[in-house]
């Protein structure tokens, strides 16, 4: 186990180093983007992806907690919410920098910016709720319920609100707009970066849950 873990960590290190090298040095900057601004896409898209993925994991773990009542699911939900908050902040910052270069303003309440802001608010609210309850069982239950309620509202944000308002945000994945589409080399780097960031967050997640398990065991010893 330990050797496999070590190997994976080194592999992740080399992979991420490769992604960074490719993003900054190997690939030429893309057509239709101002200056070197296209390079930030390789980091912005993966962080936004992980922020969304973490939200999904947190919601599923919350559902499992309410079903099974096992503390490990509560830890999973809490750790991925913490990670999600971190990645949502990173995605917001990188997105704002890109928006400044491309459209001239850091923030213009583009629907995608609204969605990520609300995701940030949800994460912040979730963590605030957790810190406001001192009974572990109650905290786990209330947080899980809130997480599921948030999950109910997210589809409305993701799919219906952007339909109402006009968006400047490039649709990289679906290639709807030929001006902003990435060629295959760019797409390969982006996919590699996505894989790398996903691996990185899985690693962070496993560290986080291990810390929570240890804390839990210590509290059990107190009892």
């Amino acid at each position, binding site marked *: 186990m330990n050797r496999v873990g070590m190997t994976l960590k080194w592999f992740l290190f080399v992979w991420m180093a490769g992604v960074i090298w490719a993003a900054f040095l190997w690939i030429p900057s893309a057509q239709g983007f101002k200056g070197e601004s296209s390079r930030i896409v390789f980091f912005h898209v993966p962080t936004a992806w992980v922020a969304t993925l973490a939200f999904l994991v947190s919601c599923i773990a919350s559902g499992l907690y309410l079903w099974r009542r096992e503390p490990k699911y509560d830890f999973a939900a809490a750790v991925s919410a913490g990670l999600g908050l971190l990645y949502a902040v990173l995605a917001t910052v990188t997105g704002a920098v890109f928006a400044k270069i491309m459209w001239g303003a850091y923030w213009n309440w583009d629907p995608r910016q609204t969605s990520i802001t609300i995701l940030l608010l949800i994460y912040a609210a979730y963590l605030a709720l957790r810190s406001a309850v*001192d*009974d*572990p*069982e*109650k905290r786990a239950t209330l947080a899980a319920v809130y997480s599921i309620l948030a999950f109910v509202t997210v589809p409305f944000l993701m799919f219906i609100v952007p339909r109402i308002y006009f968006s400047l945000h490039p649709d990289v994945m679906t290639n709807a707009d030929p001006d902003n589409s990435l060629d295959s080399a760019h797409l390969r780097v982006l996919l590699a970066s996505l894989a790398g960031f996903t691996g990185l967050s899985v690693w962070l997640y496993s560290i986080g849950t291990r810390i929570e398990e240890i804390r839990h065991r210590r*509290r059990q010893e*107190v*009892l």
Partner: protein
Amino acid sequence: MGEQAGEQRLQPASGDSGNLCVSSRTRSRKEMDRERVREVKGADSGSGSARMELSTLDGLHAIVPQMSGGISISFSDVAKRYDLRVVFRAVSGEAQPGEVLVITGPNGSGKSTLLSILCGLLRPTRGEVLYRSADGGNLTRDAWGRHLGVVAPSMAVYEELTALENLRFYARVRGLASADADHRKLLERVGLDPERKTPVRGYSTGMAQRLKIAQALLHDPAVLFLDEPSSNLDPTGQDWLEECVRSLLEEARTIVLATNDRREMTWGSRNVSLAG
């Protein structure tokens, strides 16, 4: 957890003679619900509406202890912790119908917390609480409330409402088929004036305590939790309460009592003591 639950129900044996007989049967939850609906309908037609809740008090001495059923409580290795603050660890005990389990312990030892866990208001960090009906089946946690009456300092009635309105409210949300006349009688029994129009806010603590006792007896519960029940009661009230508890025991009720009062402690047949 068993879906089956034994229920005792007091029903008039024949018309309005006032004789009460006890039927104890085993029914599925669905059947019980249907039964309750039927009771409510019976109340609408105006016949035999005054039954369940009066038996405790009206029939205090009239009822011969012929009840075969009752609910016993047992709990084992119950522990409660808030983050790093441990309230208590590994507490066990049990109470059978007709018994008083006394929980003692210095202030802050977690008597009220244990009581909250036992009535299902709080989940224990560890351990298990079981409610067993006469036929040996376990009650689901959701069903406990229907069989419980609680008097505790940390559980209040609505102080914007009058005493009568309070009882009426609890009867309605419990789906009881009791009329106002029953509630008035119950209030008189605990020594309150049913016609008093002031909200409970204007009551003295002793009077509020009497109302809380009335609330706990309203639905004729099989299990009673009493947390320092005679606090704030005058000597007459304390005598009345003791007599009331004795007759409840004769009716094979299960009583759990958290107290440090020397007089109340003498009621008990079993004892759990919490360390400070």
